[in-house]
């Protein structure tokens, strides 16, 4: 990795809810194309950190810089258009749409959204180019057989893939994944890991991964951050961090 500026620099992020500190001066960096893991016990503030970075929550203190510019004050959709995408711990798909439409909506939104005038004269059907890009994504994720199914009829595992696909349609530079294996069985977890590796190889998207499945983190992440009670307690290469006694005590427990 070149010594160029990091893609994402979150500096000393602090967030409190009703006086209770959820994040305390957390500093995180993600470089272009790398996959970084973020682990920590329940309530450590992982999802809160994601929400601060993606713009849902406004941190009380701290600065977030992305691709050379400050993100402070930008709403979620503006950050998304700059190249920040995310998936959700508790899956958030657009109800009442089929799989392909989920991706087509994201594809359209990537450019900042359609014009009302085009709608009014009936000129906003998906273009051949959009459909093709969308079909390629479905293919990459192995979702082609499900393309026309309503998302309500998908299994959780397929649903998580659709969410991933939807995020990738925006051609993100950085992707936040919030527990992508949660609720998946082992085979699905394994498949998810394989897909993530493929995605990374293909598009060089940087990924920040929150995950409880330690084997999956080990397999995918080159570096790790460990959060505990809102504090960053360790960071570094995956293996080293996992062997750190403090991390073992706070998170992994003796048996692992």
């Amino acid at each position: 990795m070149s010594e160029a500026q990091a893609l994402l620099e979150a500096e000393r992020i602090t967030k409190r809810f009703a006086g209770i500190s959820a994040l305390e001066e957390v500093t995180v960096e993600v470089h272009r194309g790398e996959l970084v893991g973020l682990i920590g016990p329940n309530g450590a503030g992982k999802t809160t950190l994601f929400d601060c970075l993606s713009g849902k929550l406004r941190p009380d203190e701290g600065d977030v810089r992305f691709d050379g510019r400050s993100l402070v004050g930008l709403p979620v959709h503006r950050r998304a258009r700059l190249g920040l995408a995310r998936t959700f711990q508790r899956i958030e798909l657009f109800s009442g749409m089929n799989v392909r439409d989920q991706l087509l909506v994201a594809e359209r939104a990537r450019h900042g959204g359609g014009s009302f005038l085009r709608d009014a004269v009936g000129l906003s059907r998906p273009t051949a180019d959009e459909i093709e890009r969308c079909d390629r994504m479905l293919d990459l994720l192995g979702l082609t057989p499900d393309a026309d199914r309503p998302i309500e009829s998908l299994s959780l595992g397929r649903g998580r893939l659709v969410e991933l696909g939807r995020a990738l349609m925006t051609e993100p530079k950085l992707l936040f994944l919030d527990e992508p294996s949660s609720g998946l069985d082992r085979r699905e977890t394994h498949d998810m890991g394989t897909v993530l590796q493929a995605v990374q190889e293909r598009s060089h998207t940087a990924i920040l991964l929150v995950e409880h499945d330690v084997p999956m983190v080990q397999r995918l992440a080159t570096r790790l951050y460990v959060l505990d009670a809102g504090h960053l307690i360790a960071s570094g290469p995956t293996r080293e961090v996992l062997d750190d006694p403090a991390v073992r005590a706070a998170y992994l427990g003796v048996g692992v």
Partner: protein
Amino acid sequence: MTTAPILELVDVSAGYGAFRALFGVSFAVPAGTAVAIVGPNGAGKTTVARVCSGLVQPTSGRVLVDGDDVTGAATHQVARRGVAHAPEGRSVFATLSVEENLTLSFRQAFGRTGTGDGLARAYELFPRLGERRRQLAGSLSGGEQRMLTLARVLVLEPRLLVADELSLGLAPIVTEDVYRTLGRVRAAGTALLIVEQHLDHALAIADEVVVLDRGEVGFVGPAHELGDRAASFLSAHEETV
């Protein structure tokens, strides 16, 4: 066996609207034993748990508690027979505080006088909840909400505990804690029906295993016999680590 099992499902089919999730599922949970339900996602495990507590009514078949037919009974009637269900996911009252969540349950089970004791035991089990007792449950993290659900059912010491995806979203260290507590609860006489993704967790505690596949029972038997019979089915899930 001379006494009726705590819970028995006889040829139960169930589903949601037009969708069928279970087809003729039968198994029993004898008193004091632990039964694990395993199977891939979408096999119908959660539906089985819901049928047991009366949240989902079977379209055919019967549900027996202590030998009495409770098919069609309201959920609260099943609960009063000592069946506690910890549903999957974030099953807490988000707009009530942690303490109110617990009080709601303990007032019903232990009466006015027992509530305080129950709260104390819950906070002993999960000190983290004690720290946040005044906080709204909705403001807890996913894992903490899980703890709250668990604290409720573990303190109740029900006759049968139906636990759906206990470890989902819990850090490894907490998962181990939870299973240790389950062991204690079981030693105190509670029968367990555990729905699990993680086979090794399930097998470590279960006497019997029910393997569900596509809404049908693929295997029922002692946990240690699972090996050969279902090897082909499970191998796909074992290979990841």
